[in-house]
Each structure stands twice: as C-alpha cells, then as structure tokens.
C-alpha cells in the first residue's frame, strides 16, 4: 500500500512556468500520469561501457564456461587428477585472428580484449576435450556449438600443417641460411665419406670445395703424419666417424685416419678468413656440441656486416644444417639448449637525439 502511495504522489510543482501551466493537485486525483511516448532505451546492459558487443560476448562465454564446468563436476570429471589429465586425447585448436574476430563481432578489438576472449575460449576448449575423451558427447557437442563461430576458418589446414621440409639435394648436400646482426650466410654441408677411395669424399666434395691450398695441404700432411694414411677404410655414417677412430699411441699401427672436415668461407679456408680464434670457435661450436666435428665438409658464402656477425651467421646456418642431416630429437635438444637454432634478434640500437650514442648521455653539467 505504501509502495503504491509512493507512485501515487505525482511530481508537481507548486508554481507555473513557461513550459507548463499550474494545475491544482486536486484536479489530478483521478488522472493517471501522462505516459508521454518515451524514446527507446539502449538494448545491451553494457551500453555505458561503449563496447557492448565485446562485454556481452565475454559474459555469454563465461556463462557457457561455468555451465560446462558444472556439468563436468556433476559427472565427476572435474577436478581431474594428474594421471587422468595426462590421458586426455590431444585436440589441437586454433582461434580466429584478432582482425577476423573484430569483423565477426563488428566491433574493434584491442590486443588485451582479444586475449581475454581467447583465454575463455581456451578454457572452454579444455572442457570440451575432457568431455570428448570421457565419452560425454552431448556436452562436447554443446560446447562445440559455442566454439565453432570462433574457430579459425581453415582449422584443418592450420592444425595439420607441418614445418617446411628442407631435403638434401641430389649430391646429399644441405643448403641453409643463417643470419646475425646484418650478416647473412648461405651454407652447404655434405657428410664426409669415409670409404676405400684414396681421396676422401672425392667426387662429392670436389663440387663443393676446391683442392686444398698449400697451407691447408701442409696442415693435412701434419695430420696424416699424426694418424697415418690407410686404404682400408670402411664407409660409415658421418655421425659415427669419430666413434670409429681408435686412440692410437703410434702412427705405425694400422687404423683408418680421421680426416678432419674442411670449412671454406667465401672460398677461403677458415683459418685465413677468421684470424681471431673466438670467431673460429663460434663457427665450430655447433659441431663440437653435437660431436660432428669431422663429419661434414662445409662451404659458406657470407655477406654483410663484420667478422663477428659473419661468424655468428655461419654458426646459425651450420646448426640448421646439422638438424637437416640428423633429425634426431637429442641433436635438436642440444642445439636448442645452446640457443644455436634461434636467430639472435639483437641488432644495433639506433642513436637518439640528445644522446651521444644509443644510450651514452652527454656529460652532466650543474648549470
């Protein structure tokens, strides 16, 4: 009763104004308040956020997520113990790109907002995965209905894509490109052949490496003197070359000599091109880490930058080449851990106005 009295009190002024004449309240006792045709209200409850489409969508997704979680909990599928989580079937998914989703939702999406939507989508996808693995197909289909409009258009192509295969060419060479700072190196690597023919890897390496220069020949003579040369060498895979070589005490014992790999940079032997031992060590590092130092003959063409940049580029290309020849996961892990497979993104920082160099400030003066 008191509530209706609240409404029955009309909001009347006790005076006249130019807009409305004065009407004594008694005259309005049985008259309902004039319901002037009001303008319509905005539809969305998030109208005053200025991005109602985004907030409404997020709200709906969160509702769907809490419903799915409640359904899974009622079926004793949540919370899942670790051994059950490991047993879930893999289900790759990919969401629409930010621009694509902006078009679908017909509202501009910033990076943060896009990430907040995809995080909820990822959680919904996890629920779908659990439902599908456990055989709760109705729920999985229900969640799929929610997620289909957010999935990438070419979902099959995107989830099944593989890294581009970089095969060896008809001579068994790998061709890889490495970069560091402003240098880029193109590197051909061919496994060293340890067969009975006197000149090791003769036909193949001739196309790759020209005959050794006198300096290199002298080095080779020294090495031959150390290990001795023998004709009875069996052809072995490149990676076991070092393992096959026994440790000798005197050159008189018959054993297959270990031919060290040759590295040519711009058609110049490595010890001439890179006088600095640091640069040489940098180039050779991927080979020493994977134990394939005598395994490959390497020919590199490098352009741009200075010596240290060029040596880094060659090392990068050699690491990639090792992975092409030897696709074992252990080799990949070793090189990945040593950060040799990643193109070093560090570049020279630009000079700024008001500073001497990129970071060097001018001398501070009190006045």
């Amino acid at each position: 009763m008191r509530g209706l009295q609240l409404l029955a009190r009309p909001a009347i002024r006790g005076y006249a104004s130019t807009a409305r004449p004065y009407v004594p309240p008694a005259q309005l006792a049985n008259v309902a308040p004039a319901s002037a045709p009001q303008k319509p209200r905005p539809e969305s409850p998030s109208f005053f956020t200025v991005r109602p489409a985004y907030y409404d969508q997020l709200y709906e997704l969160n509702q769907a997520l809490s419903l799915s979680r409640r359904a899974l909990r009622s079926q004793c599928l949540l919370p899942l113990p670790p051994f059950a989580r490991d047993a879930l079937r893999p289900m790759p998914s990919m969401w629409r790109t930010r621009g694509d989703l902006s078009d679908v939702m017909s509202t501009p999406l910033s990076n943060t907002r896009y990430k907040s939507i995809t995080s909820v989508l990822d959680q919904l996808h996890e629920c779908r995965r659990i439902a599908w693995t456990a055989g709760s197909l109705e729920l999985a289909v229900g969640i799929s209905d929610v997620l289909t409009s957010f999935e990438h258009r070419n979902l099959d192509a995107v989830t099944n894509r593989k890294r581009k295969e970089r095969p060896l060419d008809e001579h068994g060479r790998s061709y890889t490109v490495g970069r560091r700072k402003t240098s880029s190196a193109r590197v051909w690597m061919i496994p060293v052949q340890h067969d009975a023919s006197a000149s090791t890897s003769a036909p193949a390496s001739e196309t790759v490496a020209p005959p050794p220069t006198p300096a290199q020949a002298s080095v080779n003579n020294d090495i031959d003197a150390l290990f001795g040369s023998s004709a009875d060498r069996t052809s072995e895979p490149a990676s076991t070359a070092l393992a096959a070589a026994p440790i000798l005490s005197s050159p008189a014992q018959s054993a297959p000599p270990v031919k060290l790999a040759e590295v040519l940079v711009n058609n110049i032997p490595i010890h001439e091109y890179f006088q600095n031992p640091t640069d040489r060590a940098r180039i050779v590092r991927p080979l020493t880490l994977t134990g394939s130092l005598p395994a490959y003959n390497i020919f590199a063409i490098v352009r741009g930058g200075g010596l240290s940049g060029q040596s880094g580029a060659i090392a990068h290309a050699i690491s990639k080449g090792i992975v092409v020849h030897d696709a074992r996961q252990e080799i990949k892990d070793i090189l990945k851990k040593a950060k040799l497979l990643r193109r070093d993104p560090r570049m020279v920082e630009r000079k700024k106005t008001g500073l001497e160099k990129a970071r060097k400030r001018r001398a501070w003066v009190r006045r």
Partner: protein
Amino acid sequence: MASSALRAGLAASQSIRRTAVRRAPRVFARNAYTPPLQGERPLENWDDWQDFQSDRHAFKQMVDVYSEFGSNQTRENTFQPHHTLHRPLAPSQATLSALIAAGAHLGHSKSLMNPNFMPYAYGVRADITIIDLDQTLPLLRRAASLTRAIAARDGTIVFVGTRKDLQPAVVKAAERIGPQAYNVGERWLPGTLTNRFTMFGAGIKDQRVIPDLVIFLNPLANMNAIRECAIQHVPTIGIVDSNVDPRIVMYPIPANDESTRTAELITGMLSIAGKEGKILRDQQQSQMSRGNSFSRTKRTA
C-alpha cells in the same frame, strides 16, 4: 543488437544447461576425490573412463551416507562466501550485524582521513578510522528507497564498479532489475555522457541515453564519471570510504570500499530495491489497465 555469434552462443548455453540438468544425479559432496596412487589406472577408452567416473561417484555417495552422522552444519545451512553475490539481502533485512560481518566499518588509515568525513567516523582503533554504522544504516536505507522510487518511475539505473572483484556484482545487479538497469564493470571511458555523440555515434539521438541514477561502488577511482554526472544533472549514490569527501556524490553511503563483501551486500540491497520498484510499477500499470477496462464496460452498459 546481438550479433549472430552472440545469438549462437546464447542458444548453445541453453543446450549445455539442458545437458547439465539431465545428467546430474543429486549428491551432496561437492568435489569428487580420487585417492593418489590407489585410484590410478590406464584410461584408454570410454569404458575405462566410465569405470573411473563411477568409482568417483561411489566415493561421493559414501561421503553423503556418512555425512548424516557428522556435524549438523552443512554447506546448505551455513554461510558461504558466494551467498552475498547470489543470495542478496533485502533492504528491510539490513542490520548492523550484517554490516559488521561484511567488514563495512573498517575505514582507511587515520592519517588518510578526509576532514569532511569526520561526521561519519566513529573513532580510531589500531590506526584505522572506524566508520559509524549507526549512520550508515539509515543512509543505506535512504539510498535503497531512492533506487526503488526511480525504478518505479521507469528510470535508468547504472551500476559502476570498476574493479575485477566488483564486476560480477554490478553485472548481477543490473540483471536483477531488468532492461532499465546497466552496468560498467571495467573502465568508465571519459566522455561517455558529455561526449556521447562522438563515443556512440549520431544514432543515439533517438535513444534515452542519459541515466536517471548512477551508483558507484568505488567513487574515488571514477572521478571522471562523477564529474560527468554532475554536469549532466544525474543523481548519484556512492560507497564513500574514510579517505573520500562524502560530498562528491549526492547520496553517500559511508562504508568500506575495499571490501568485496561490503560492496556485494550494498549492491544486492540496492538491486533488490530496484526490483521492488519495478514490481510496483508493473502492479500499477496492470491496475490502471484494469481500471480503464472497467470504465469502458460502464459506458457501454
């Protein structure tokens, strides 16, 4: 204007809700439990998963059986943290105990107290300003009464709570009242009211955009919005803490603005008051329409 994706999402939520209801056997233990090292088994096909689920369900049922011999206090008849959000109190149920239990009396540090807040401060304890809840309670009921009256006259109400923990409260409050209530759960963009044609486009000329009441859960962080409401002559309600000048809003409610529970309590009360106002308006509309029909029959007769 719901997009097709939004409509699809709505329909899909319904299908998930149906699935949830159909497959849910009533158990009282909330979470399933699998004992470590004992319950581990290879899960290779759907039958394995079915066995896994039924084992967990059996454990839950055993817990239910033995729960009857335990304490009388269960999840159903004790206070749970989500109750302030999902089971709000009506303004008529506002008591000092409820406010103290929510921690509404804890203000900010003594050194941060705004001198204009002095009338609403009870004192200082442990270097914290204690808010006088004997004054908060009638001011809260006044704010509820205002909300009810505005909702009854078909006014637009906006709940503003721009913190992560306040977002669910404002969303639920707007939902409770209905189409005439709105919420702002993240940042209030400056110019929403004063620069609205740039923000929303020229299409809003045919819409009722200026609200009739704005309720702030954290007014200190929304000074832009308060200023805009003052410029546009919109009445405001706000939860003012001891470091805030209570005159920034028209109807201050002196309480702790940092406590989620207090904010949910106050928002719940105001939203229920708004819902009551809406019900009153609907009753009045139906009475008026009945009154008109009676008068029509009289004339014909």
